[in-house]
Structure formats: C-alpha cells, structure tokens
C-alpha cells in the first residue's frame, strides 16, 4: 500500500516552516529551512547522520528553540510563544521517541494514561477504558500491567505510540521508528503507521533514514543534508529525481568520511558540558 494514491482534498496547512535557523551555541545546525506540511499527509524527513534532521524534529516539538525563523502550527508561531501557550499546543501533538522513552517506574498502562491523568479531569474508569483502547489500536491489548523492561523493542515502540495517541493528537511525530528493530518488526511498525493514516487521516511527520520504510509510508518526502533542504516532493517525484545528492542518498552510494580538522581539534581540546535545561 503505497502512500501516494491519496487524494488530498483538504488543503489546510498544518505546519509551516519559514526560514528556520537552529544553532547549538555557536554552531548553526539548520540553515534556513522552508516547507509546509498539509493536513492528513505523511511527511518523511530523510537525511544522513549529522544532517540536522533530529534537530529539526526536536525544534518542531519545542525541545529546541530556533535562533531565527518561524514555525507556524495552527496559526501560531511556536518560535515566539509563551511556555503556557506552547503547552497547549503540545497537548494537541504526540511524539514517539527513538527508544520509546517509556517511564521505567510505571506500567505500560500507567505510561499511556499519564497524559490523560495530567491534563484531563476524566474519571478513572473512563481513563482505564481509553488506555485499553489505545493499546488495542497499537496491537498491545492486554499488556497494560507489564513493565517497560518486560517488553521487546518492537513492543516498546508500540507502547510509545499508544502513549503519543492518548490525547488524540492532530499531528503525530516519529523519531526513527524503525531504528534498532529487525526487518520483520520494523515492517510491523510501518503497518501501524499506515493503519493510523488510514483510520484517522492524521498528519504524521516521520524522521528516518530507513529508505524502505520511507517509501512505504510517505506521501511526500523531504531530504535534509548539512542543515538544508535538498529536495522535497512526492515519493514518485523523489524516486525519479536526478539531483546528485538525492540519487546518492536513495541509491546508497558511499562517501568517504572526512573529519574537518577544526571539528576534530575542538573535540580533543574542549570539554563541553551540556547546559542544564530545567
């Protein structure tokens, strides 16, 4: 089931990036990113290691602050809003992290129910029903009393998706959903994403470097390289692209690793402590 047969009748723009620049300290990682994400589409952000795609995803969910530029979500520029307003937007989005990021001290059910318990005044019995529903949706029915440490990698990812779905988000973000999974389990996660697309017509943004998954789930793809958008288009357009960087990525052409001397020297002599973001 490829992703590009969908007839996008709604032309609402869910998310819009305008000239986005993101830096870590003095180093600029993203140099002016521009693209839109339409309602109901699945956009895959492709890129190699160090391309900036993870930074891009983190910025979209508000974990990093842009140094300049705008990110419009539902009419609000999240690069310039108060934390309280950002929290309201976060209640409308869901994110599935690379390792699942389930809270180890709680059961799977408690993990999934956490957003509901925090942000709603629903009765406990209702929350029980809802968490079972979410677990059912991701194929983990009956696992609500398991601890995360008792789950396999694929199951952890599914539980993470269930948690991300708890508040019925409008946009769902995935960070490397297939990372560390064997091909069969990874295919299962792809099918899950396709099912979410089909059933809820959710807007889904996936960051990955797994081409097979990307081609399967994407409506459109955007290739990020060295902090810039190299190409953006539907899956078909990308497959047929003649741009050298795109072909190199899609055809898996190896490139010699050259560490810039300055970076290497910095690594050797500097001891950088990450700031304590509280």
């Amino acid at each position, binding site marked *: 089931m490829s992703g590009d047969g969908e007839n996008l009748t709604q032309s609402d723009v869910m998310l819009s990036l305008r000239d986005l620049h993101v830096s870590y300290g003095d180093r600029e990682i993203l140099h002016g990113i521009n693209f839109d994400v339409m309602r109901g589409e699945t956009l895959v952000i492709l890129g190699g290691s160090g391309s900036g795609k993870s930074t891009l995803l983190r910025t979209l969910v508000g*974990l990093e602050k842009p140094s300049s530029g705008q990110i419009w979500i539902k009419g609000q520029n999240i690069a310039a809003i108060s934390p309280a307003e950002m929290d*309201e937007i976060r209640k409308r*989005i869901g*994110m599935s*992290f690379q*390792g699942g*990021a389930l809270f180890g001290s709680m059961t799977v059910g408690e993990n999934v129910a*956490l*957003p509901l318990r925090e942000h709603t005044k629903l009765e406990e019995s209702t929350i029980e029903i809802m968490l079972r529903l979410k677990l059912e949706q991701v194929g983990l029915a009956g696992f609500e009393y398991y601890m995360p440490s008792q789950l396999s990698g694929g199951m952890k990812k599914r539980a993470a998706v269930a948690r991300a779905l708890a508040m019925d988000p409008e946009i769902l973000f995935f960070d490397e959903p297939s990372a560390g999974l064997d091909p069969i389990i990874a295919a299962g996660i792809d099918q899950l994403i396709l099912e979410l697309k089909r059933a809820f017509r959710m807007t889904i943004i996936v960051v990955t470097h797994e081409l097979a998954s990307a081609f399967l789930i994407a409506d459109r793809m955007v290739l990020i390289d060295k902090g810039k958008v190299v190409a953006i288009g539907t899956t078909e357009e990308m497959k047929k692209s003649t741009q050298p960087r795109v072909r190199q990525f899609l055809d898996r052409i190896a490139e010699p690793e050259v560490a810039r001397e300055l970076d290497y020297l910095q690594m050797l002599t500097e001891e950088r402590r990450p700031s304590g973001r*509280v």
Partner: protein
Amino acid sequence: MAFVAQIGESVTNGLAYLGSLATLGVRASYYTFIGPFRGKPLRMQRAISQAMDVGVRALPILSLITFFIGLILALQSAYELRKFGAVDLVATAVAISMTRELGPLITAIVVIGRSGSAFAAEIGTMKVTEEIDALETMAISPVHFLVTPKFLAMIIMLPCLTIWANTMGILGGSLFGVLQADFTIKRYVLASIDSLFLRDITTGLIKSVMFGITITAVGCFEGLSTGAGAEQVGRSTTRAVVVSIFLVVVVDLVFTALFFFISGG
C-alpha cells in the same frame, strides 16, 4: 595572568551554578507551595513514596551511624573533661554537639549518600533515555513531575531524621556514660535534656531543612543536566554527592554564624 583568569572563570562558573540551583529551587518551591492553589495539585502518592525512600529506609543506617557518633563524642569530650574532674558534663557536651551540629550534619551526609546520589542517577538516566524530553512534549513539567515530590519529601523527612539522629546520638553517649562515668541511663538522659535550650534543637532543625533543600536542588540539577551516555550518568551522580557535601557545609557555616550573631554573639 592566565591563573587569575582561571580563578575568575571558576568564580563566575560557580556563581552561575548557584544561580541555576536557585532557579530550580524556586520552581520546585512554586509547585510545592503555590501550584496546588492554582490548579496544579501535588502528587501526594509520589511524594509519600519518596518520603519512604528518603526517610524510613534511612533509619537503620542512620541509627547506627549516629549512635556511634554519640559514643565517639562522649569519648572525646570525656578525654578532655576528666582533666578538670568534670566528666559529669559529658552528657551536656554530647547533647549540645549533637543537636546543634552533628545531628543535622551527619543526617545530611547520610541522606546525600543515599538519596542525593539516587536523585541524580534516576533523573540522569531518564535524561539519557529521552524520558525528560518525553515529559516536555507531553506538556508535563519535569520539575513538577520529578523534582517537587522529592523536594516535599526531603523538607519533611530531614528534620524528622535529624530528631531521630539526635536521640540516637544521646543514647550512644549514654552508653559511655553508663559504662564509664557512673551514670544510669535515666540520669544521663535527664542530664542531656536539662542541658539543652529549645534554640539548640530548633537551630539544628532549621539547618536540616536548609540541608534538605540544598541536597534536592543539587541532586536534581545534576540529573537534569546529564550529558549523553551511561558514563555521564555516573559523572552526574558523583558530582551530585561531592557538590552536595560541599554546599551543605557552606550552608551549615552560614546558618551557624547567623545563629551565633542573632543570639547576641
């Protein structure tokens, strides 16, 4: 000149660190004392389970340690006092030393070793596995969710533990008193209580609350600022313990001096 620059940099880094700790402390206090009235209820379940870990589970080791400290204090005091034929005063010496100083301080150190490190390790591991990020993306404040229950537990448990420590210390001293100084337990304990003014106990308890705040702030801050990788969690935990011990002693000095000058010193 480079040496001076280094000192300057260390001082500014140190002040920045204290500033970050203070920020964390203020935010934790907000969620503890003001938040509940503004629609952000306290998680009593979590606070209680933290209090069990911090307080109740520390009792065995704390009892042993402070009992021995009391005994050591008695031995050391008696060593000097007997030169003046004043071994009778050993009860006084132990009681005042424990309640004013050693009770709060030793309790703080035990708690740093048990809980300060645990806070840093727990939160640091969560940082490394992106659980802190997950909380933020779910619009849940990590300070409200993780730090506040610990904060509440510590400011309640530390004074309680200190009272217990004082008692065990006096009992430890009584062992010496009974065996070597012709006391009965009853007479020793009464002598101890007689020698204490209320302010001896209260100054100690105020210090213990301040220690609790310090230990929580440092442990949680180090956890939250952990870098990437398991090795960094180890570093954060070690730093949390060392910095906590140092800052607890500094806070001790500040408040001891404060109480000295307040009481007309």
